[in-house]
């Protein structure tokens, strides 16, 4: 198993999200979690998705996997519309798409042994031969840097957060998926462990020929692993572009603000007095026009009247702003 299958090397993006809308009911009000997001992820690419809490990035990740059904829009995975799928068809498709969560300890059943946790997806996928299952489980556990003979018989509480995340990664890899949504996979981990897990994800990506949607709030973490980055604010995309370019020359004032707010571990860099005033408005009643306008230093009347659409400002770089910085 695990040989990187010669996958269809077409130019079609592996994932194509089009005008996705996800809403939650809250009493008689509606939370506009994702409001018309379109994006593409090419085969073998890592797309980073950044934004602050409540911006809808996790909801977007879940809606891609149909764990939360979108209200409208489509999610094309390898040409198949996941939003139109149900039951067994969807379950089969989900073997090709996996998810890694933020809290590695909470995402492992505390009463089951590691070997069984990692083997579970194989059982669901119909691998009936226990020997075959064991062989695959042993292979993935070794791949993520754990000794299968030592860990398979133990319970999750015997492991640290970093090791639990390795186990979660092994579980996500066991069906040899093509695409993994990583939802804040390192934000619950300590700095020294974070680097280990980021390196592991990179290594696994190359080894298994994966395509990743990497969701995080930490821009430096996102940059470390992403080919392209999408910035999200209050349910909408602000900006999408190649990592280097987006960080060197942000076009959206919100991206610039995020970059400025990161504390730099260098005492010579005086922290800029935070230009960020105010806080993100509620997604129950998002502002008219551009959703960032209430905190934007460049906002004017047009921003409240007219919603900016994503448009190209540089090769590969798209921005949704009436007054972009470049």
């Amino acid at each position: 198993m695990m040989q990187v299958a010669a996958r269809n090397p077409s130019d079609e993006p592996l994932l194509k999200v089009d005008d996705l809308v996800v809403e939650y009911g809250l009493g008689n009000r509606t939370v506009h979690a994702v409001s018309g997001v379109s994006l593409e992820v090419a085969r073998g690419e890592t797309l980073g998705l950044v934004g602050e809490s409540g911006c809808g990035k996790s909801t977007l990740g879940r809606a891609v996997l149909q764990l939360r059904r979108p209200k409208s829009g489509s999610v094309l995975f390898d040409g198949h519309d996941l939003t139109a799928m149900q039951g067994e068809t969807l379950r089969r498709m989900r073997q090709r798409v996996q998810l890694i969560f933020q809290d590695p300890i909470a995402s492992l059943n505390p009463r089951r042994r590691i070997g069984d946790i990692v083997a579970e997806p194989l059982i669901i996928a119909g691998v009936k031969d226990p020997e075959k299952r064991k062989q695959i489980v042993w292979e993935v556990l070794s791949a993520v840097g754990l000794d299968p003979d030592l860990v398979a018989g133990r319970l999750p509480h015997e492991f640290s957060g970093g090791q639990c995340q390795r186990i979660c990664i092994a579980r996500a890899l066991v069906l040899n998926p093509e695409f993994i949504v990583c939802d804040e996979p390192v934000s619950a981990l300590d700095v020294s462990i974070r680097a280990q897990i980021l390196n592991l994800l990179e290594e696994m990506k190359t080894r298994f020929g994966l395509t990743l949607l990497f969701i995080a709030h930490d821009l430096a973490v996102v940059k470390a692993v992403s080919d392209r980055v999408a910035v999200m604010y209050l349910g909408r995309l602000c900006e999408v572009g190649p990592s280097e370019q987006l960080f060197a020359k942000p076009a959206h004032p919100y991206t610039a603000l995020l970059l400025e707010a990161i504390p730099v571990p260098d005492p010579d860099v005086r922290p800029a007095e935070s230009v960020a005033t105010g806080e993100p408005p509620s997604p129950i009643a998002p502002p008219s026009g551009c959703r960032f306008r209430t905190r934007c230093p460049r906002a004017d009347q047009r921003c409240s009247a007219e919603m900016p659409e994503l448009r190209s400002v540089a090769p590969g770089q798209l921005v949704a702003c009436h007054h972009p910085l470049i």
Partner: protein
Amino acid sequence: MNGALLSIQDVAVELPTPRGNLRAVDHVDLTLEAGRTLGVVGESGCGKTMLSRAILQLLPKKAKLTGRVMFDGRDLARLDPESLRELRGRDLAVVFQDPMTSLNPVLTIGTQLMETIQEHLELDAPAAKRRSIDLLTAVGIPAPEQRLAQYPHQCSGGMRQRIAIAIAMSCEPKLLIADEPTTALDVTIQAQILDLLAREQRRRHMAMILITHDLGVVAGRTDEVAVMYAGRVVERAPTPTLFKRMHMPYTEALLAAIPKLETAPHTPLPAISGRPPDPTRPLPGCAFAPRCRYAAGRCHQAKPDLSAAETAGHFYACFHPIQMAEDVGA
């Protein structure tokens, strides 16, 4: 040490656990002068929070504290509960990580603010209310009068942390302990809260201990930094010295492991292998030795003492200190 507001002398904290005693804080010495800021940096389980609890005398009941915690001329470890209560909230204030759990959900913000003020300052209700409004204004809360009647759940995380800071500042404390004050907040809100803390600290000439896991947070905002590992302070230095002329391999490794914005995507991070030691099974040697790339024979057998470096105020606990290649001007 004479002018010090806070002087922690040989403080150790032991917690009984089913697997044996856990030494959470292992003989720590620290001093802090009035109006200065000390950053305490370390990963989870390094003892930084237990150290702050030891200063505040808010340790778990079963914990055993040894050593002296001299604050403003008095040893807090030997103070009676009544005097401690007088001190806490007035001279000694704290802001915790999670503002939702540190505020009482069933009391209005006004009640919580005025309670502290009236407990410690001899003010009548209208005066306490006026002071509350002033404090909320100072921490940047719009429409403070309306906020007084609201409950914590009606405020955002950032607002709640501002309110917690307002309560902490309400009696002009001499020392503020901020324990991961921005860890639960978003990055743009974090910048605002750190600015607010720095501004109030300068304005009120408070001493502050900023406890964090993030070296980026202490870099621009502290006078001095103490790095903790496995219960001990392993390096302590004026902030610029720590970043430019660190001697402790752990400090170097921790700094290197942080993803940097300048680095190109897909560059492997210099990760620290392994994980911190089990605190119930202390190692005979340096606690970092199993993960340290410079470790040699002696490191596994004996604990290095905290010794003075060439720069004043710089201490490190290592047998094989690293020498930074470039000598940054003194």
